[in-house]
């Protein structure tokens, strides 16, 4: 911690004007600005230099502080977003408190935007500098705030992304809570038959990882559960979770399935895209993790045949209630994936109207040997294997009236489906892919496209608009109508149509974003803090995103993001404490009337009215407050101040801006 050894009561300000190569000096006369600085009250020293931010420049600042016993420093240069932390640590090397630093932005705010009017630019630069000096005179030394860090971590969503995050963190030694909405972890990958471009069996490569998660001593899976509330902040989150009743005592259930065999009741299995059925007591698929059965009380007739079958294992409990639990963690990784848009609302494709129009995920279940047809690709209308199939790309995606974005993985999974069908049925099947652009831009993908083209699959490039499907009501065959790029109509009769329907954010994305205080991006997926250089960070410290929940990405990319988010979370968890800037709201409890105005304006749930010594007063949750200051502005009694953004300091700046003499 830097000690302030210099007397603060009489400000001695040093001003360092940056030339920034020619970025500033080509528009503003920096010599003149330096001379001007010296005329301002309490400025004890001023100079200009090429790059104050480089090592040389920083060294000069440190020396000047020491030589002239400066106790406030102003750099007139770029935006504080870029170099404020650099200069703060620079002045602390001269034993000056880092918050006795002020930055005057004369680059983004002056030289860059007013380069054609240098005279006015010079005046504006002087105004800005005068304001900075006015504030610097009143700066107070502050101390950073340190938060403790809980070493546990939560992963919300147990798809392939969340699985990788969990395993990585658990292997690093952190205790991981995986909260999964459905009965089993695995996500969409566990629903797939094979994966592009290598065509390896999806569950064969994901299954062992799922089992590892289930068995890892550092991982606890909280499945069939909903997140209800997230409180707290980085280092100390408190998550309230509802565990929904399975009506099965998990520790007694051996996963034998004898109850399922005894149960008389069947209902459509959403895991199988409602193409097949499951029993009222069952698991959605055989490789489920945890392998604990669930009774669906909506369908169960309470015959208790399962209870008899279960016998001495005694795993069935019809009185089980939902249970609310609280889990405390230091960091959270969100990996809740995506959902598929239901194309029934897009009349032109006839989904729901024509029997032989299916979605890509439905085809995936048809291809799968463990699927509802035992791996037979058949038509719904007659149960026969089709001799021709058309694939329609971008159904709902890349459509400004629907989902403007590209769903990312559809081109590749269509290639996968087409290659699998072609290699299986050879000349007994004709495949037509109606596409607009083929997006095959990762390792091995373009080569896979070539393999598809060489195998005799027909690729027809058509416009995204004016595509529709009609049905022959007797043969139940379908005709695809489309237009080539040069406007020529094309028509193709086929026996089955597969739609590459859009992938969309899960229905809970917005709700969860609200609980976590993280924004959504256009399209409704989670927004990352900086998509390029901080792709897994969110605006909330300690909350990270991974996988398809913040943009549609395929399995390899989701896996790497899962590991990336694990590393990011570990960077938080491994710290002994988490340091935040002391610029957060401060409440003067004597002035606070408990009117709650602040709580209604705070966008981060950071301020609440609590009983403090027999009095209702506002209290700030340190880790949540972002120091935006809105509560301070709204408070009618002036009870809330923001350190170094006090009324006195702000008014002094306003006065300076208006040219008033101090």
């Amino acid at each position: 911690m830097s000690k302030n050894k210099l007397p603060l009561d009489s400000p001695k300000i040093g001003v360092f004007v940056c030339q920034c190569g020619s970025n500033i000096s080509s528009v503003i006369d920096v010599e003149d600005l330096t001379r001007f600085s010296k005329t301002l009250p309490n400025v004890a020293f001023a100079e200009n230099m090429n790059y104050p931010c480089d090592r040389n420049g920083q060294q000069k600042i440190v020396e000047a502080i020491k030589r002239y016993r400066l106790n406030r420093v102003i750099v007139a240069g770029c935006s504080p977003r870029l170099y404020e932390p650099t200069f703060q640590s620079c002045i602390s090397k001269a034993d000056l408190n880092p918050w006795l630093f002020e930055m005057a932005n004369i680059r983004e705010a002056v030289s860059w935007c007013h380069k054609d009017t240098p005279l006015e630019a010079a005046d504006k630069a002087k105004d800005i500098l005068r304001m900075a000096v006015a504030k610097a005179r009143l700066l107070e030394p502050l101390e950073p705030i340190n938060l403790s860090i809980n070493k546990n971590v939560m992963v919300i969503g147990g798809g392939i992304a969340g699985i990788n995050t969990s395993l990585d963190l658990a292997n690093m030694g952190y205790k991981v809570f995986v909260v999964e909405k459905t009965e089993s972890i695995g996500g969409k990958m566990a629903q797939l038959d094979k994966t592009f471009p290598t065509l390896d069996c999806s569950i064969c490569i994901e299954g062992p990882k799922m089992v590892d998660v289930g068995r890892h001593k550092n991982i606890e899976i909280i499945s069939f559960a909903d997140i209800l509330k997230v409180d707290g902040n980085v280092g100390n989150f408190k998550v309230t979770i509802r565990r929904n009743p399975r009506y099965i005592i998990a520790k007694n259930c051996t996963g034998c399935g004898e109850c399922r065999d005894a149960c008389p009741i069947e209902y459509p299995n959403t895991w199988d895209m409602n193409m097949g059925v499951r029993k009222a007591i069952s698991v959605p698929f055989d490789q489920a993790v945890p392998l604990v059965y669930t009774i669906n009380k909506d369908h169960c007739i309470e015959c208790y045949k399962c209870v008899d079958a279960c016998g001495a294992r005694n795993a069935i409990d019809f009185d089980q209630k939902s249970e609310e639990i609280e889990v405390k963690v230091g960091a959270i990784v969100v990996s809740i994936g995506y959902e598929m848009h239901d194309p029934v609302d897009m009349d032109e494709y006839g989904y729901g109207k024509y029997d032989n129009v299916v979605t890509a995920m439905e085809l995936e279940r048809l291809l799968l040997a463990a699927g509802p047809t035992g791996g037979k690709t058949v038509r719904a209308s007659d149960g026969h294997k089709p001799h021709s199939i058309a694939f329609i790309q971008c159904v709902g995606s890349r459509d400004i009236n629907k989902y403007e974005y590209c769903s990312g993985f559809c081109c590749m999974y269509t290639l996968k489906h087409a290659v699998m069908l072609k290699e299986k049925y050879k000349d007994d099947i004709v495949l037509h892919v109606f596409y607009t652009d083929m997006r095959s831009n990762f390792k091995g993908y373009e080569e896979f496209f070539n393999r598809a083209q060489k195998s005799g699959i027909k690729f027809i490039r058509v416009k995204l608009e004016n595509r529709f499907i009609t049905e022959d009501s007797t043969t139940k065959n379908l005709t695809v109508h489309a237009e080539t790029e040069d406007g020529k109509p094309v028509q193709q009769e086929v026996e089955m149509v597969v739609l590459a329907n859009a992938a969309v954010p899960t229905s809970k994305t917005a709700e969860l974003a609200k609980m976590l205080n993280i924004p959504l991006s256009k399209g409704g997926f989670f927004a990352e803090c900086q998509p390029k250089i901080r792709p897994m960070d969110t605006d909330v410290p300690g909350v990270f995103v991974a996988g398809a929940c913040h943009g549609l990405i395929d399995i390899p990319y989701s896996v790497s993001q899962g590991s990336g988010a694990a590393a990011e979370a570990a960077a938080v968890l491994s710290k002994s404490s988490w340091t935040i800037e002391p610029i957060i709201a401060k409440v003067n409890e004597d002035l606070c009337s408990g009117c709650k105005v602040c709580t209604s304006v705070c966008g981060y749930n950071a301020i609440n009215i609590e009983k403090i010594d027999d009095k209702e007063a506002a209290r700030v949750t340190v880790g949540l407050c972002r120091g935006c200051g809105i509560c301070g502005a709204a408070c009618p009694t002036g009870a809330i101040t923001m350190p170094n953004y006090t009324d006195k300091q702000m008014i002094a700046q306003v006065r300076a801006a208006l040219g008033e003499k101090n």
Partner: protein
Amino acid sequence: MPMKHFKEESIDKLTISQILYTKQYGLTVDRNLCKGCVVCKLVCPREAITLVSIPKGSSDRIPPPSVDIDENKCDFHAICAVTCPFGAIQVTVNNEAKLPTVEKDAYPTLIRDIQIDSERCQPDCKICEDKCPLNAISIHFETLTNEEKVARKEKNLPATSKKTVIDVNKKICAACRLCEAFCPEKVIKVTKFFDGSIKINQKLCPQGCHNCIDVCPVDALYLDNNRVHVNDMFCIYCGACSNVCPKPQALELSRTSIRHTPIKSGTWNKTLEKLTSTSGLNKELGAKRVDKIKTLVKSLNLPR
């Protein structure tokens, strides 16, 4: 193809279906067999069935109510089909008749007990066929073989040239005992599957109303001196009458027991709760408990 639910209705039948990619479930209510008793509504665990009252219109007779089934709620497990006294409901899976709950021993079937000693029938008699209100009996005659003639003689039965062959459609026989009552030779013995009591509260029953008589499927009610009376012998306690009775408590009906194949099933206990009076329920559950204790004691092999 998304999962589909359909409903089709005609005067003769109501059909609902659930079509999945690989499986098709169907349920049909034969409107000619349905008597509007709504036993099915009472037992359906999904609450998918509703009673539809049909207005009297210009005719003097009130038609029996009918049922509607919500195709989005039905799970096609055939509990209604098994309990319908008149066998009006059929469930199919992939177009084959199925009783999933019965097959898995999760639900019993009603015992439609009708014993006919047709060897003792009068030659050419078809009275039972004529009297059956549900058309559950069909009769034809076959020439006797010599061996059969000898056999009859040995049994001291009167000599005849033809034998009577009686087919009872056990799916739809409601065991009302009308055939038994009218049989001149007393060769038929029927045991009801529902037992109970029915009472007309003459003080509350308004004169001139004969709704219950109109709908009774088995002629268990009759008018005498402009008053409704019950013939307890024939009543099968289906409850169709109480659904059309306009005055509360004018007609009191309760079921005390149900004859069914042996079963151990929570669903059946619910059915008992819904169909029978508490005394009936306690009787059956009590008997089961005694049975349970008996088997337990047996299995413990205690010294006497």
